[in-house]
């Protein structure tokens, strides 16, 4: 589900939610559908530090752009990862560098989840994605 969705579709879906329950059920379902990472990739080297929930990230790069794979041990964070993937996946590094991920989260009214006060790892994850994009060959 998440993989085939576009940012516009995501924004449209979210605009139909009129209470937190629908929204969080949807996010958790997105998380359940997330491919995630094989156990063998859930290693310290791929772990994003400073999070209360564990978040792991790997990526590959080819001519079509950067592909990220991420996972978490918490459902809501997995769902939010799915949202981030909708925003970034399959894009060129140069595009990702310019992406305003925070802005999309703000439009989805999920910005609080990216805040420092949450400590859920999402902010660190977005920073890592930007870092990967910045280091990718142009």
């Amino acid at each position, binding site marked *: 589900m998440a993989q085939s969705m576009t940012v516009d579709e995501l924004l449209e879906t979210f605009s139909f939610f009129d209470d937190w329950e629908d929204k*969080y059920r949807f996010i958790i379902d997105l998380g359940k559908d997330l491919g995630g990472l094989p156990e063998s990739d859930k290693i310290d080297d791929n772990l994003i530090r400073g999070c*209360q929930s564990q978040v792991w990230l790997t990526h590959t790069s080819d001519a079509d752009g950067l592909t990220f794979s991420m996972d978490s041990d918490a459902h*809501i964070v997995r769902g939010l990862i799915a949202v981030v993937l909708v925003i970034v996946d399959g894009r060129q590094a140069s595009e990702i560098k310019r992406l305003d991920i925070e802005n999309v989260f703000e439009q989805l009214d999920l910005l609080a989840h990216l805040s420092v006060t949450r400590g859920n790892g999402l902010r660190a994850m977005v920073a890592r994605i930007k870092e990967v994009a910045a280091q990718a060959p142009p």
Partner: protein
Amino acid sequence: MNIRDDFPILQRTSRSKPLVYLDNGATTQKPQKVIDTIDRYYRRHNANVHRAAHELAEEATALLEECRTKAQAFMNAAHRESVIFTRGTTEGINLVAQVIEGNIKAGQEIVISQLEHHSNIVPWQLLAQRTGAKIKAIDIDENGDLDLESASSLINENTALLAITHISNGLGAVNPVANLVEQAKQVGALTLVDGAQAVLHARIDVQAMDCDFYVFSGHKMFAPTGIGILYGRLELLNALPPWQGGGEMIDQVSIQASTYQPAPFRFEAGTPNIAGCAGLGAAIDYINGLPMDELIQKEEQLVNRALFGLKQIPGLRLIGEPNKRASVISFLLDNGHPNDVGTLLDQQGIAVRSGHHCNMPLMTRLGIPGTVRASFSLYNNEDDVDALLTGVEKAATFL
């Protein structure tokens, strides 16, 4: 007796729902009297203490020193000079860890427990690194109570210090501190009790406990943040070196050397948190005006009601079932990370804490990433318990 009306914040909403505040283990809310006292301090009395000869300074000093006397009575200390103002529990423990360095020899052991908060672990690790001492942790049993056999074997002639929590912040276990302190005394060890979670849930009597040091934070007992108390046995305090140097703590200063004041001033360098002391004094007055035994009993009933209800929820697992529990309930839902549950409760206006609660060794020992923790205070009521139960049931349907 209903004291909710004394706490203005409890009237607010959270996420557009009535606030259900069950994160009292992290910090308690403040009664109007404490808020007014701080306000009045800055409006009427603000001055630096122990220095100037003017009326304001006299008033500010009186507020601070009255707080010392109130804190002395609050924990039944024999001497008011035993009461040292700190920033909180953490600072109190760090202070002790610095000044007792000379009492610790390489190869000796510092005995803590698996239940400790990071602030009663890390300062001892730093001390151990400086002195070559080793840290040993008393194990817990399957209920989350301290394993007393483990305690008896770890507390031995090689023990330099026992540093133990009065009440566990992660599981709510009330530890038999007087008994453990006695064992430590018999082998000549120093003793520190972390009272951070105990102040509103147990009567504090440092003479009955007979510990060398007792530490707590004002903010967990209706007082503002940034003020706490270190109790130290007076003869011991006066035999220990200072930790921070500066104003107030000295007797005579020359360019090369200084002599120091006795306790408590030896350990109170610099301008203290005077407004915090005024607030803590007001909080103690407030507590003294409450029927504490009745309120603690009522809180225990609420905790039992919550425990009973939580146990009915399919897929819910209590973490820790200590023999004697105070205020804290930790649990997990089968399919949910504690942070999922915490977020889903937050959306319903219910404030709990989720995560490791600064108890990482305990969580590792239990093999879990953390817990959801509901912690009660004297102003919580049946509605809060019912909201928690309904909220957790609802959260479970998401996972």
